Structure formats: structure tokens, C-alpha cells
């Protein structure tokens, strides 16, 4: 509570302080880290200043009138009811002001629209509820999920305190790594419903629409980590699909790409090997938390009427349904998205095993990567 009072006092002193200080308290928009975000911030400050000045003038006149022209002061009301001159003046002045705002806004919009001459293209694909990033030139694909700690802290259970996690709901397992001082084209689209890709420090957001591709660009000047969120309601996980951009130098970026590719190949190779029950369950739990928990819940009970329970489910316990279980995960069903593309055989084997043995399902079934491979069409 004390921090609230502190904030309240800060707000009260807001008007007496320079604007730069205000931004630090989260009262104003930040100026970001790209040339465009700086210009967007400037445009924001121009329009904010214009409306503030108009507001002070208009409300000032009104309060003067409220104070002086009150019946209790014994004034007699005037009876005038129009004045063409005044009316022409207060139609013309606002018109001039908005033209004055429209000119810089138009210039800025044209600049933001120019995606030509980019050195690198990344396609951001929105999924319910994660982002997939495809580095088109480098032939690399990564999936970016909410980090495990945020997943744990965001459950509706007692004893979790999000205040412990500075980047609560703003952290991911795999950030989007981008090189600095490079014009990067960012394409946005989606796999299922409409999402929106927004990192405030880059100065814009853009919808990710299934079946359509929007193009945008950015050029990050300062290395660092920049965080944002999905900004178009996309179902129950809308608040849980953050975007994290990690800006590094071009050399570091190249090293990262090479390492990432190597580790992906290694994982793919390793995923084909046989695993013990313990290995399957440990890995399965990790995969479950990242991909399945949002709907089917930590206790496997799902949400009644929307997301079916896995605990005690016929599909997850009957031996004759193993095939159905695997194909549901691979190809999806109704609201359930297809995971075949996102997860490798080892991951799917592990999560299937986990679901068949957790929460009292105890079937003892062990599913291996080869079983998954057999079901892929």
C-alpha cells in the first residue's frame, strides 16, 4: 500500500516536473530504441502538448465563467444567443490546428510504411498461445512460449506470488534474437485466430491475421532485451503470449544462428532414441507445462465445458485409444491445435506418456519416438 501512496503523490507532482522524469515512472510512453520509435514518441508529445494547452485554455475560460457568472453573486444573465464572427473563428482555429498535426503525422506514416531494402526478414506467426519465428534467410524456426516461472505463478492457486518475478508474463523460453543496426523486415501472420505483435520499444504494433501477411520493419540501435505482448484478444491465453526481442550485434547474431541450428539438429537426432519411463515422465512434464497446461490445466482436469479433462479420460487410459491420443496431439481436433509441426517425435512421445501416467491415470504405457513416427502421415 505504501507504494500506492507514493505513486499518488508522484501523480500530484506530475505537472511540476520535466517530462523525461515522468517516463521513468511509467506515466508516459517511452521513446523506444529505434529511429521510428523516437519519432512516434515525438509525435505523441506534440499531440499531447497541443491538447493539454487547448484543455487549459478552454477549461480555464469555463472555470472563470463558473466563478464569476453565478447567480449567487447577483449577476443578471445576458441574453445573447449567437455571434457569427465568434463561431467562424472557433471553427477555423481547430481546423488549422488539425492540419498542423496531420502534416507531420503523414510524413511519419509514409516513413513507417517503407519496408524496402531490409537486410533480414523474420516471419512472426501467432498461435493460440505462442509465437513462431521463421528467419527466412537463415532457414531457422523457433517457437517462443511463456517462461516456466510465469506459468507457475499465473495459476489460480494459493501460495504463488507474481511479485517475485520481475518479468512476470513478459518472459519467454526462446526470445527473438535480432541484430542491431540492421533494417529488419518483420512479417506478421497467424495460424488460428487474429493476434497482434507489439514491442513498445520498437514503436509500432501490427495484427497477425490468419491467411494474410502484413509487413513492417524495424532497426534497433541499442543492444538489449525488449518486451511486449499480444495485443489482440485471441482466447483464454491472450495474456500469456509475450514477445521478447533480444537485440545483439551482427556477429553475436550470426554465432547464435549457427549454434541454434546445431542444437536443433542435435535435439532432433536425440529425440529418436529410446527413453526410460523416468526420462519420458520428466521430459513429458516440461513439454506439458509449455504446451498443454493452459487448457488442460496443471491437474489435468481441463475446464468443464470448454477443455476436456485428461485425468481419467477414456482416450488417455484405454490401451486401444493410444493411436487416437497420438493423432489428436499430432493433428489437433476442434479447438485443439496441431502440435505435429511444433514438437519433435521425442517430445510428443514424452508428453503422451506423461498424460497416460500422471494424475492417477497410471496406465504404465510407455510411448516412444518410433511410435509417433509411425503415426505421422
Amino acid at each position, binding site marked *: 500500500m505504501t507504494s500506492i501512496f507514493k505513486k499518488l503523490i508522484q501523480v500530484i507532482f506530475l505537472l511540476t516536473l520535466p517530462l523525461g522524469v515522468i517516463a521513468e515512472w*511509467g506515466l508516459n*510512453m517511452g521513446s523506444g530504441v529505434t529511429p521510428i520509435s523516437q519519432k512516434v514518441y515525438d509525435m505523441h508529445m506534440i499531440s499531447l502538448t497541443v491538447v493539454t494547452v487547448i484543455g487549459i485554455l*478552454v477549461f480555464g475560460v469555463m472555470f472563470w465563467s463558473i466563478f464569476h457568472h453565478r447567480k449567487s453573486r447577483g449577476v443578471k444573465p445576458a441574453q445573447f*444567443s449567437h455571434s457569427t464572427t465568434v*463561431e467562424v473563428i472557433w471553427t477555423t482555429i481547430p481546423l488549422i490546428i488539425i492540419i498542423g*498535426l496531420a502534416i507531420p503525422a503523414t510524413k511519419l506514416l509514409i516513413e513507417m510504411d517503407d519496408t524496402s531494402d531490409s537486410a533480414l526478414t523474420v516471419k512472426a506467426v501467432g498461435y493460440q498461445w505462442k509465437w513462431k519465428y521463421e528467419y527466412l534467410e537463415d532457414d531457422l524456426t523457433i517457437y517462443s512460449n511463456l517462461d516456466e516461472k510465469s506459468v507457475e505463478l499465473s495459476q489460480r492457486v494459493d501460495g504463488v506470488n507474481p511479485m517475485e518475478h520481475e518479468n512476470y508474463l513478459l518472459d519467454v523460453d526462446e526470445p527473438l534474437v535480432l541484430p542491431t543496426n540492421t533494417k529488419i523486415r518483420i512479417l506478421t501472420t497467424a495460424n488460428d485466430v*487474429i493476434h497482434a505483435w507489439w514491442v513498445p520499444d520498437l514503436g509500432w504494433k*501490427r495484427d497477425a491475421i490468419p491467411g494474410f501477411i*502484413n509487413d513492417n520493419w524495424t532497426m534497433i540501435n541499442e543492444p538489449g532485451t525488449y518486451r511486449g505482448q499480444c495485443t489482440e*484478444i485471441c482466447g483464454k491465453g491472450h495474456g500469456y503470449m509475450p514477445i521478447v526481442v533480444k537485440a545483439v550485434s551482427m556477429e553475436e547474431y550470426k554465432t547464435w544462428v549457427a549454434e541454434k541450428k546445431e542444437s536443433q539438429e542435435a535435439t532432433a537426432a536425440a529425440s529418436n532414441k529410446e527413453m526410460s519411463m523416468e526420462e519420458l515422465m520428466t521430459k513429458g512434464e516440461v513439454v506439458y507445462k509449455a504446451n498443454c497446461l493452459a487448457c488442460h490445466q496443471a491437474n489435468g482436469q481441463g475446464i468443464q465445458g470448454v477443455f476436456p479433462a485428461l485425468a481419467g479420460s477414456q482416450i488417455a487410459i484405454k490401451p486401444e485409444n493410444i493411436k487416437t491420443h497420438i493423432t489428436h496431439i499430432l493433428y489437433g481436433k476442434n479447438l485443439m491445435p496441431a502440435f505435429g509441426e511444433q514438437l519433435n517425435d521425442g517430445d510428443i512421445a514424452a508428453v503422451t506418456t506423461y498424460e497416460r501416467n500422471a494424475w492417477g491415470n497410471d496406465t504404465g504405457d510407455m510411448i516412444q519416438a518410433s511410435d509417433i513416427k509411425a503415426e505421422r502421415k
Partner: protein
Amino acid sequence: MSTLAHEHDHHHSPSGLKRWFFSTNHKDIGTLYLIFSLMMFFIGGAMAMIIRAELFQPGLQFVDPQFYNSMVTVHALIMIFGAVMPAGVGLANWMIPLMIGAPDMALPRMNNMSFWILPFGFALLISTLFMNGGGPAGGWTMYPPLVLQLGDAFPFLIFTVHILGVSSIMGAINIIATVFNMRAPGMTLMKMPLFVWTWVITAFLLIASLPVLAGAVTMLLTDKYFGTSFFSAAGGGDPVLFQHIFWFFGHPEVYILALPAFGIISTIIPTFSRKPLFGYASMVYATASIAILSFFVWAHHMFTVGMPIKGELFFMYATMLISVPTGVKVFNWMATMWKGAMTFETPMLFSIAFVILFTIGGFSGLMLGITPVDFQYHDTYFVVAHFHYVLLTGAVFALMAAVYYWLPKWTGYMYDEKLGKIHFWLSTIAANVLFFPQHFLGLAGMPRRIPDYNIQFADFNMISSIGGFAYGLSQLLFVYIVIKCALGGKKAKAQAWEGAKGLEWTVPSPAPFHTFETPPKLTKAMLEY
């Protein structure tokens, strides 16, 4: 018309359930609309309380994200279609015949029907919350493909929208028919009270925009059940097409909520300034220009969908242009107060708060209209703050002002002025504590429609929630004041307010069951609003 009304002169007013279910009397139907909208205001308000309770601190405490989303969705649908619109129609029903010297609405039976289908529409909507799969949870804007993922509630949502649309269109036709056919001799169009003018223009907006919404939701229905692909890219359609159609309805809808409020304020400020409205003609023209422009700005709700730049520029210019006639209105209200002899009864207080707070909402609206910066503001709490300033401290404050202003005419008693003022100050302070910090949240990067947030947003969310609870509780006082006034108090004179002009103040308070069965003789003084 007047002879027909004369035959009913000696009938007793009906009583009991029959009076309310079968009523064709504009005053009774107006009362029904107003009571219904107050009930909806509290149901929608309860949902807002759930939202603010969940957002009180980071983490999930009370509801699951899916239910949170349906609260966000149904809160909006109920407040827009159940609270603000019916309250406006209720006022129109009560006041338009009294203001133009007509015995009743032109189409009284249709009037009964347009009210009585509303409770059924909302029963359908609210019942969806208990259905398999939960209530609508994709936002009141119903964007596909998300809305198509809805469970059993989906067809109910669509039919609710149809029913509410039918009701509003009938109400609008009735208002237009009444105003164009039933004005007292001498009441020319340019002598009508501004409230009547704003409502006629609103009625045209309703008739032009609601069928578009009905079309859009019907296309959703066929996409879901009959294999069409209007909005599915996989079938050759376009999800953004829905947004274009929706907002072609949605933006005029904003003015459907706001224009009657402008009419109310233009009635109340002259009364308590004891001075005629400044620039009557320019008010009428400004209202008409706002209404016309409202059909050319819809895509400013969807700047981020990736329109061609020429489209973005067009919609930016058109949007900024709306601030000119809106500015004219604000300046006219100021000039009306200028050199008046003002007193500050509750309706006047709410009206002054309206002018200031609606203008603040207009300022953030102008900022949102600037496309390159809207890319930052869009779908953040800055937008939530903006539209609550124009709809809550705008439209709802004007409706509150109207209720206080005409309550003496409706009940025959003066409301408790002291309690009214307390209600005003509580509401105004609470609403600002509730919504002003949301500007900061939006600018700092908090998206709208999320059930949980990063800890950097914790303080302002807590402040906002405290304001929310205070605002919610203060409205109970309003109910108490209204009930108290209906039951008794100081008798109201026919001319309840010293400076009030207009025909409604020539009939006794409370207004008798039948009024103006013969058209009133208008004098010049009666028309100097």
C-alpha cells in the same frame, strides 16, 4: 389526431400488471425503458466489479481467464445495448412528445413491442454464461475467427444481436414518425428543442447502421453452420472484412450513444445558466455533420490490420475532421454559460462534469486518430481510458443529469438535492480515480482484455480498482435517491426549475397520464431555449 385522443379523455389510467405489459402510453413505456436500463447498468456494473477485482493485483485470484474474457465481453454488450441505448430511448419516449406538444408517440403499439422484446434479448445473452463452453468471450466486437470458437453460446449471441437490433430500429422509426408528423402547430423543425434534434439524427444513424451489424453477424452464423467462408481466408474470404463491416456499424454506434447526451447537455446548461443556448443553428448543423462524418471514419478502429497507406491516411484525416464540429459544440456550451447567472443543482453539476470529462475523452480521441501514434496506443489501456471517458463520464453522466433534471416532472416531487450533490461528487471523483490512471497503464504498455499483468502495472491497477469499487458503490446512492423521490418529498411545481424553457414545463408535475390531447398554443417565450 386530436379528436381521437379526445375520446380517451375520460378513461381511467389502467393499473396492475396489465398497465405495464400492454402499455401503449409513451410515459409508461419511457419509465419501463429507464428502469430496465438501470437494472442492466447494475448487472453490467457487477461484471465490471468482477473485472476490477481480478485486476486488483497481479496473479489470478478470483476467476479463470476464459470467464474473465466473457466478463469483458458481456459487460460491454450489456452496457452499450442494455444500459446506455435503452436509457436514451426511455428519455426520448418520455420527453419527445412532451417537448413537441404531441399526445403520444406516433406508433404506440410498436413502442410497446420495441420495449418488451428487450428483456427477452438480454435473457438470451445472460443465459449464455451458464451454457456449455461459457458465454461469449472474444470481445463485444465479435471478431472472427475467434468468435467462431465459441461453444453453444454462439447462436444465442447472434440472435441476441438480432433482437436488440430489431428493438432499436423500431424505436428509431417511431421517433422519426413522431417528430415528423406530430409536432404542435408552429413548432417548425428549427424551433424544436435540441434534445429532439439530436434524437432525430440518432434515429437515422440507428436505421442506417444496425442492419449492417445484423448482416455482419448473420454472415458469422452462415460461416459457422452453413459452410460459407465470408471471413475465412482458407475458403477465399477475409477476416478483416468482418472488421470493416462491424465498424461501419460500430462508429455510428458511438454517436448513437453520444448524440442524445449532447441533446441533454444542450437542454440543461441553458436552464441553469438562465440564458438561451448559444448557437442553436450551429448546434444542429454540428450534430448533423458529426453524424454524417461518423460513416467515413470506421477504419480508425482498425489501423493495425495492415491497410494500404492511402486508406490509413484517408481515415486519419476524416477522423481528425470530426474534432471540428465536436469542438463547436463544446465552445457553444461554454458560450452559453458565459455571462449567464448560474446555479449548480445536481443536473448542472453532472452537465459541467460532462463537458470537461467528455472533452478529455475527445482529446485522447484526437490523439488516437493520429495513425502513426495509434500504432502504439491501439488495444492498450489508453483506449480503455479513452472510451470510458466518453461513454461513462460522457454518455452516462449526461443520462444521470437528465434523470435529475426531469425527475420532478416524472414523479411530481423534488429529489433530495443534498444527496444528489453527494452522489455527483462521489461519482466524479471515483470515475476519475478509476479511469485516469488507465491512460498511464496504456502508455506504459499494458494491453487491454488481459486477466493478469506484469508487476510494473500493479500500482495503477490497484488505484483504478479502488476507484472502480467506489464508483460502483456510489451508484447505490443514486437508486436510493430515485426511489426516495418517487415516494415523496417536496412537491414539484409545473415549472420545476426557474430557468427551464420548453413545453414539458407547461404541464403539471407529475405529468398527467395523457398530455397535449389538443395541441398546445405556442407562444414565442416558450420556444426561446
